[in-house]
């Protein structure tokens, strides 16, 4: 056995029920964010303004869900006075919810930047911006789904890879984003045309950070180690 076991059952059955409910609600919020990203990806593939508008409007239910989960967390803190793994789980869930809300915001902002402008955003090296962004969104979505799976399954090793970005995927995306950014700046395009594209790239970058943060929160909830704001990878060293 090399992974942490998920903690056993409480003597109070209601406590277990509450904890399961919390997990379900966080996962539901995660699924909502994932849906938004999927929709954005679809919209980008089909140049579909209608879908893009749906993405922008779809941020509102996520915000509402955040409020709902937050309320539930406060209730749990007040009623259960959690300690140990329960405390870590609830704190991590609270932080994850915040990250999810921001991730939802970023998704909506990307949709707004890409579709609400009359002028199409510029590309890079002749490649169309939309295509490039689409593949990046797809990659972000994939990472995001991984981290949510890690949260659901208590998989702290997977979270470690995601957080440290030593894994190929995360690092690869990071690199692609940097390249694109350099390319946009280097291509000598007009700043006014490139602004939207840069905004989208920034959003993607921030989205990636949020995913990494969620991974850190998962590590915290499983091991109790706070790995935020560290240069190097977590305690595996």
């Amino acid at each position: 056995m090399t992974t942490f076991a998920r903690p056993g059952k409480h003597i109070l059955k209601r406590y277990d029920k509450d904890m399961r409910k919390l997990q379900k609600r966080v996962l539901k919020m995660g699924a909502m964010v994932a849906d938004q990203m999927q929709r954005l990806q679809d919209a980008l593939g089909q140049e579909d303004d209608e879908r893009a508008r749906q993405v922008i409007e779809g941020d509102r239910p996520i915000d509402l869900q955040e409020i709902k989960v937050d309320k539930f967390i406060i209730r749990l803190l007040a009623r259960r006075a959690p300690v140990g793994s329960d405390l870590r789980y609830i704190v991590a869930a609270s932080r994850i919810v915040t990250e999810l809300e921001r991730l939802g915001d970023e998704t909506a902002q990307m949709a707004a930047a890409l579709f609400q402008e009359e002028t199409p955003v510029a590309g890079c090296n002749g490649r169309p911006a939309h295509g490039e962004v689409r593949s990046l969104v797809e990659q972000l979505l994939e990472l995001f789904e991984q981290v949510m799976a890690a949260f659901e399954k208590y998989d702290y090793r997977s979270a470690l890879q995601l957080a440290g970005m030593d894994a190929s995927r995360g690092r690869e995306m990071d690199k692609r984003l940097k390249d694109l950014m350099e390319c946009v700046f280097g291509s000598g395009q007009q700043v006014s045309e490139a602004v939207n594209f840069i905004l989208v790239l920034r959003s993607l970058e921030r989205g990636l950070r949020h995913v990494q943060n969620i991974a850190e929160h998962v590590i915290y909830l499983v091991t109790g180690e706070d790995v935020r704001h560290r240069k190097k990878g977590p305690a595996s060293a």
Partner: protein
Amino acid sequence: MSVIDAGIRPDGARDARETDATVGKPFLEKKVTLRARNVNVFYGEKQALFDVSIDIGKHEVTAFIGPSGCGKSTFLRCFNRMNDTIDSCRVRGEILLDDEDIHDPKMDVVPLRARVGMVFQKPNPFPKSIYENIAYGPRLHGLVSGKSELDALVEKSLSRAGLWNEVKERLDEPGTGLSGGQQQRLCIARAIAINPEVILMDEPCSALDPIATARVEELIDELRRKYTIVMVTHSMQQAARVSQRTAYFHLGRLIEVDKTDRIFTNPSHELTEAYITGRFG
């Protein structure tokens, strides 16, 4: 592999060897008031404590937690040899109070108990006046000479226990007429009247309501500056609130001891985790 023996490390790998070793930090480098090494306690044939070793830091509140019958009270009573009063009870191992072995045959229990005071689960004032309750100990040990000195000591002890203003008008009334919380503070005042180094508290708040509990907890926190306090508690919240270090006992073994903050956010041992989060099935 039984659960008790399986320590796990923060990196997720279980300790491979089967061990009874305590996890956490049983020994301290800073000032230590009480040192226990390999303490074993037997009630007749039955062993109640197994090889408990721990340091109690000076001017710290150390909390012992654990399920009923885990030996925490038994261990607490080793520190002032209260177990001597039980015929069938035998204590093996070494307990040092400021580097003096308290089980040394030359060590008399009377001065030991003057140095290690005790407060019990149920408030147990003597059925005498409030004044007599406080004055009994100092008079017994001949700590004061003269009535005025004794008066001053009674006032000081009661003040330190935060009870003076409540009882100064009725020192002649019986101590048993006070409320439960006041009685317990009277018992604490009685303990500090003989100016001990260590105060042992055996579930001092289990018979009190939340407000009285809060008062006693506040008092414990204040007393920490002058005394070393070891307390047994069934309330994990209380251990979390008032102690600096927490030790978790299970079936007669010291499972884990560490800073209270760590025990309550990220305990190292599965059993500690299961106990503090309410997962014993």
